[in-house]
């Protein structure tokens, strides 16, 4: 079991409130991703759940029990750190066995659990190595191994993939999702990368300046962002946000349209513009177009569409896919 409830949780360092007040419900077995720009308080929130930071107010309830002032080890959670925080002088075996040893379990039981975890994570051949002799991805797996042997109520991940290269990050993303399906344990995952959030989460929590902007499934957030911040943060490339006259035509202060929802044509369309930089990704092409009276618009189109720098093109946004926001940035 691993349901976690945050009730009016707040955190301030001195007079600066990092997290004004947060209420959040995390259901057992859910994969929740906290996402937001750096400095939005997502790591602080995770550390508060872990017990590594004190609460300034509110309560943290894990499995129905108030754990707000309980020691980290007593909360039954395990954490994977950004730097992995492996113990450098212990072997991989020693690292994975450490939490069990601290728990006072007997040698045979420890041995079995460590071997099992190593098997799940493909670390069996590396048990004698020291962390310094492993690659980044292997270290990451050791850190996860150390987390799973405790059979925690929930896993906490603090930007675990940010030290890996792009290819490995993609792999580990899959492995962690896989692990979640195998173990069915609650996972809370912190990242600033919206791609990780979109691909892995059951539920995304978008944070900005210590406040929750929106909570929902990845596609919810993508289809109906509640405000400008979420609209701009979720989706890649970013949603085009248009202000001024063009927005006013649709009775909005800010008008949002995703690059994939703008049609591009060389002959006719609603907006006339000049092609700037074109990014060819093979499967897709991102075209940055300067539209008179509207501004810079990014368009996503298929890989075969070719344009030249400075060429005249016409753009048409799909009317059904327009997002309208009022003066406070809230969706209408």
């Amino acid at each position: 079991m691993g349901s976690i409830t945050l009730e009016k949780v707040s955190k301030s360092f001195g007079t600066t409130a990092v997290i004004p007040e947060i209420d959040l419900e995390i259901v057992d077995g859910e994969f929740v991703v906290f996402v937001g720009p750096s400095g939005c308080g997502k790591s602080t929130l995770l550390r508060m759940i872990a017990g590594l930071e004190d609460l300034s107010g509110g309560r943290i309830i894990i499995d129905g029990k108030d754990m707000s002032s309980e020691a980290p080890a007593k909360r039954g959670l395990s954490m994977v750190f950004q730097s992995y925080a492996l113990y450098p002088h212990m072997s991989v075996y020693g690292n994975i066995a450490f939490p069990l040893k601290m728990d006072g379990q007997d040698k045979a039981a420890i041995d079995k659990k460590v071997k099992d975890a190593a098997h799940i994570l493909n670390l069996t051949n590396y048990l004698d190595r020291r962390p310094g002799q492993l690659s980044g991805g292997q270290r990451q797996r050791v850190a996860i191994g150390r987390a799973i042997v405790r059979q925690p109520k929930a896993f906490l991940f603090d930007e675990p993939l940010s030290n890996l290269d792009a290819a490995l990050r993609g792999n580990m993303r899959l492995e962690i999702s896989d692990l979640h399906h195998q173990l069915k344990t609650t996972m809370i995952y912190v990242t600033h990368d919206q791609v990780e959030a979109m691909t892995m989460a059951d539920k995304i929590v978008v944070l900005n300046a210590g406040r929750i902007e929106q909570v929902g499934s990845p596609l919810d957030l993508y289809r109906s962002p509640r405000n400008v911040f979420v609209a701009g943060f979720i989706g890649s490339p970013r949603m085009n946000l248009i202000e001024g006259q063009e927005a006013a035509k649709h009775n909005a202060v800010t008008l949002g349209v995703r690059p994939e929802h703008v049609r591009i044509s060389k002959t006719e369309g609603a907006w006339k513009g000049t092609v700037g930089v074109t990014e060819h990704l093979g499967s897709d092409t991102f075209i940055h177009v300067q539209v008179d009276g509207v501004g810079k618009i990014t368009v996503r189109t298929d890989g075969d569409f070719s344009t030249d720098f400075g060429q005249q093109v016409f753009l048409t946004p799909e009317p059904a896919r327009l997002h309208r926001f009022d003066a406070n940035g809230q969706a209408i």
Partner: protein
Amino acid sequence: MATLQTRATARLMMSPAVILLFLWMIVPLVMTLYFSFLRYNLLMPGTEEFIGFLNYQYFLTDPAFFTALGNTLMLVGGTLLITVIGGVLLALVLDQPFWGQGIVRLLVIAPFFVMPTVSALVWKNMLMHPVNGLFAWIARSFGFQPIDWFAQLPLFSIILIVAWQWLPFATLILLTALQSLDGEQIEAAEMDGAGALSRFFYLVLPHMSRAITVVILIQTIFLLSVFAEILVTTNGGPGLQTTNITYLIYAQALLQFDVGGASAGGIVAVILANIVAFFLIRLIGKNLER
């Protein structure tokens, strides 16, 4: 530095320094070796002659030699024990954030800047003096008989003085090692359920082992030749109780004017230091490889 030419130039430019250092080392060593095979007493000038290993024979069969050897090892071992354990504890304290940290750190480092002779005199006359000393006053104010440190516990007193001088060095090195410990590792251990003691023994101590090795190696080199503290406090006495090898050689050369015998002692000391260094490096060198 890749081409032949730059390498040759580098060697040429380095050579004056290397040659000077080499001469600086080799001339005294060869002269000492030479003297050690002579009968050479300043009280009998003009009678110098080659006597083979006789000086060595006298020095090594002198009962004072074994006492001095034992004292030297006790002095080194005792001081290392106090400075390493004390240094680890002090470093742990100084690593905590508290008000006035900067001043306290400065004060802890201060003893290192005091000359050995001066600090030994301060200890002898102001702290350990059986009549005027601070320790005696403390003992008397609690109604105890004051300890006459240099008469009752001479070697231990010397160890205390030397340890006081070297504690800052150990603390400083161990503190820097402690500060380089990754905070996330400690937090990870906290989440893994390790208490403060387990964290110290499983994480902090292994992390500091390399620094401890360095402290032991460097201190051993200097502690083998402790001299000033002994000269100004006990003069090697009472009896031979605080005579170490260095002091024995000094007594041989400048109290008995036996340059030949002292030279032989000096060579013996060099060999002993090398033996100690050999075992030390074998013993803890593994720590440095990691």
